[in-house]
């Protein structure tokens, strides 16, 4: 398993039967590959559907059936279509159980920076700000560092996507939870020592019982 696969498979263990889940584009979409077979989860795509099914074969492609990343998708049984207002009503209104998103930076208070890279064109926040504010549980799925530089900070330095909304951070090294008293290290990857994790994290970690990540 590479870093992304480790992250995606660990995030998938957070899902429960009946959950409505929204996966951001990029790494988070991989989570769908690791849903435990004994649970039934519904994925939302914010462009207007609940019930993402498997990727279509070439001859099954419908140009009017895409996900929020403009990829062709299918609809599984029990799914349905709706407009953007309804879609974001579901998102903002706390009806999404879990959203999984990437990060440029995420901090010990649960704030997230994910939409502005200094010096680069800002493509826009899309639906990310609504998702982070609205979902019941916000999981950040990200590599622990970017070119060796920590992405997990005491305080974000980049412009925020949302303030104090993140609940959990899953990297290839560790699982962390944002609580009122700070960032708790809950799990470490079998190959990562606590020292390595501390070293590669730019935020104070509260450490009690650290379990091994199951991936």
């Amino acid at each position, binding site marked *: 398993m590479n870093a992304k696969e480790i992250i995606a498979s660990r995030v998938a263990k957070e899902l429960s039967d009946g959950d409505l889940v929204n996966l951001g584009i990029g790494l988070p979409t991989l989570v769908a590959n690791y849903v435990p077979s004994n649970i039934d989860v519904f994925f939302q795509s914010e462009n207007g559907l609940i019930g993402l099914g498997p990727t279509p074969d070439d001859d099954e492609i419908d140009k*009017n059936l895409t996900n929020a990343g403009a990829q062709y998708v299918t609809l599984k049984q029990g799914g349905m279509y709706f407009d953007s207002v309804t879609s974001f009503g579901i998102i903002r209104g706390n009806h999404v159980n879990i959203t999984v998103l990437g990060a440029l930076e995420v901090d010990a208070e649960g704030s997230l920076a994910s939409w502005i890279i200094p010096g680069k064109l800002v493509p*826009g926040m899309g639906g990310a*700000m609504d998702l982070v504010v609205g979902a019941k549980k916000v999981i950040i799925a990200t590599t622990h560092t970017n070119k060796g530089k920590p992405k997990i900070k005491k305080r974000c330095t980049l412009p925020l996507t949302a303030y104090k909304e993140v609940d959990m951070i899953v990297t290839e090294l560790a699982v962390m939870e944002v609580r009122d008293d700070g960032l708790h290290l809950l799990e470490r990857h079998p190959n990562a020592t606590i020292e390595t994790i501390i070293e590669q994290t730019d935020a104070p970690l509260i450490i009690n019982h650290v379990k091994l990540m199951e991936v």
Partner: protein
Amino acid sequence: MNKRIDKQAFIDKLKDGQTVMVGGFMAVGTPEILIDWMVEANVQDLTLICNDAGFGDKGIGKLIKNNQVKKLIASHIGLNPYAGQRMSEGTLSVELVPQGTLAERIRAFGAGLGGLLTPTGMHTLVEEGKQVINVEDKPYLLETALGADLALIEAKTSDHYGNLIYDKTARNFNPVMATAAHEVIALTHNLVKTLDPECIVTPHVFVDALVMEVHDER
């Protein structure tokens, strides 16, 4: 009550400087042929309201490429290289709006509301220049209603009255934009005598004109 119009009648409705809402999400659900006709008419100084900037040669991206757009209000512009280019050239200004806020602002206009209070964007750059209002000690951004002169939407099927249904995820911003413009023009791919009154998504009262495109050539 015949709402059908042809290409010329459509072009006659276009004016320089108009604010135009266009349905679609990454060009899925965008009425392409109407955009082509806007390119052909070469109207200038448009303000566009759309979820995104489309692609370079698809969706409203074609209008940006052709230098017809003065301002774009959208949630995302990353898939159209011309958008960034026009911005750095200084010919295009872009107002980025969180996608859910964009949908709600358009809805507010269509529903006669002055605005809405959303938690989205609090403590971010989106807050700039906006009023923060506390309700039960929780802060919200006041976002105001957003309407347009013209809304261009794409439907799957219309009946003779202009009642509309949509096709899968091509629905997206189309129904809400149908409520929020002074004139609403729908491109439809099918025209039928009646639609199931329980399944109509856009009531005909929102639709001013219909353009019929039997053969979808995209």
